[in-house]
């Protein structure tokens, strides 16, 4: 069955404050969706990410170089993702639509390479 990446995007760098009511509310919505995905056999993996400022970039070379900060030079940052299994694009879009609603933000759906 085809697999898809659903990534969750933020317009700018974000802070994670799990104690805030807002974070708890979103967390509950996402948790409910996770359970629904698992129940339907669609859930492969999913996680929320620490802010992009926590990232380190490594580049190959004679010695692998290491720099502080995220790779993408855009304001937009990936805040989390799911890997799902779905019969086809339309089924995947159904999950992506629910993901956007649960996260209250933009998500990107992208198919994984197969074969």
């Amino acid at each position: 069955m085809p697999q898809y990446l659903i990534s969750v995007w933020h317009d700018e760098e974000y802070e994670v404050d799990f104690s805030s009511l807002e974070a708890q509310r979103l967390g509950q919505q996402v948790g409910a969706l996770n359970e629904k995905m698992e129940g339907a056999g669609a859930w492969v993996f999913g996680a929320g990410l620490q802010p992009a400022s926590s990232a380190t970039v490594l580049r190959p070379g004679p010695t692998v170089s290491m720099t502080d900060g995220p790779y993408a030079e855009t304001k937009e940052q990936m805040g989390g993702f799911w890997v799902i299994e779905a019969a086809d694009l339309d089924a995947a879009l159904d999950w992506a639509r629910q993901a956007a609603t649960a996260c209250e933000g933009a998500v990107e759906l992208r198919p994984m390479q197969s074969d």
Partner: protein
Amino acid sequence: MTDDDLATIYRREVGRCTATLIRVLGDVDLAEDAVADAFAIAADRWPATGVPPNPGGWITTTARNRAIDRLRREAKRDDRHLAAHRLLEPDMDPEPTPHLDDLDDLVDVVPDDQLRLLFLCCHPALGADAQVALTLRLLGGLEVPEIARAFVVPEATIAQRLVRAKRKLRDNHAPYALPRPAQLPDRLPVVLAAIALIFTEGHTASAGDELVRVDLSREAIRLSRALAELLPDEPEAVGLLALLLLTDARRPARLAADGSMVRLADQDRSRWDRTLIAEGHDLVRACLRRDQPGPLQVQAAIAAVHADAETAVDTDWSQVVALYDQLHALQPNEVVAVNRAVAVAELRGVEAGLAALDRLDVVRLAPFQPFHATRADLLARAGHGASAVAAYDRALALTTNPVERRFLDEQRERVLADGRPEGGGPR
């Protein structure tokens, strides 16, 4: 058999054949090539043998057999057993040429295939440009240069658009299936919008020297007709067909002999196509009986009211305003509001029309050409010459179509000369 006969058969059958072949072969590119092969064989053989009784079935079967031959050759060469194996079910063992008598048994032509293909081409995951190009290529059978000419863009742009769209659908495992009933309310408007876009592009080209590009309008009507036949219980699909027919009926009167644009009010209504109007009217009445109004049905009803009037003065403007009110409730946007103001001007006078325009969100409408063109016309008719010229200037700055530019330029010159556009003046 003449070349015209073959062209007619091609136009009529190519979408259906491609749609069925995609289902049978499970691959868009393979289906496209196979159908092209089959039509090439037809062009070679039919002049001698005559056109078979079921040309679409002949094409579909021949195309399938060609595709299987090709896959077999490639399977030997590239060891692509799997692809070929999938097609080589015992009952589908191909013959070089189908027996004409057996065609109905051989070819499983499913009307739903065309719908599947239309929903695939107009998948909401594709951009509108890609939807339109893919629909014209696969369902209309238009070649890349034809599509490029129609949209006045380079061939390479269209070719790349098609490759990317097909690739996206394949990489994403887009299903070749009808949307579930629950998905239809989301999916159908996308298909209707794509067909409407094809029609509009043919009706008022955004670039190029001809205002009316007949082929795209006709293509859109063909697609719309097929859709309305396949989804007879979707009133908006019927509404789109009615709207396109009633709009296309005015085509013979839209351009003057010198190629300049003629406004609806000034058109020679004896040149309107009464056959198209009659069919459009029947469809609008059928929609009214069903009583599930949608934006396209209401627009068709407005076009029907215009078609009813023997002269522009006879138009039932109170009916038109009432329909625009209904349309604005269903679809609150600027285009509708501007058109409604035009109808208000006819019903209650130019100043009332201007007042209706002035109540709109002028900032949001600033980049919208019809707002300025409409405002210029109403200002001129109300005798506000200087403001009208300023509005024409703004409209002209936003107009790319040369025929429309010429029309607006002439109106502007008339206002400069005597303060009133031809045929205008408060009514």
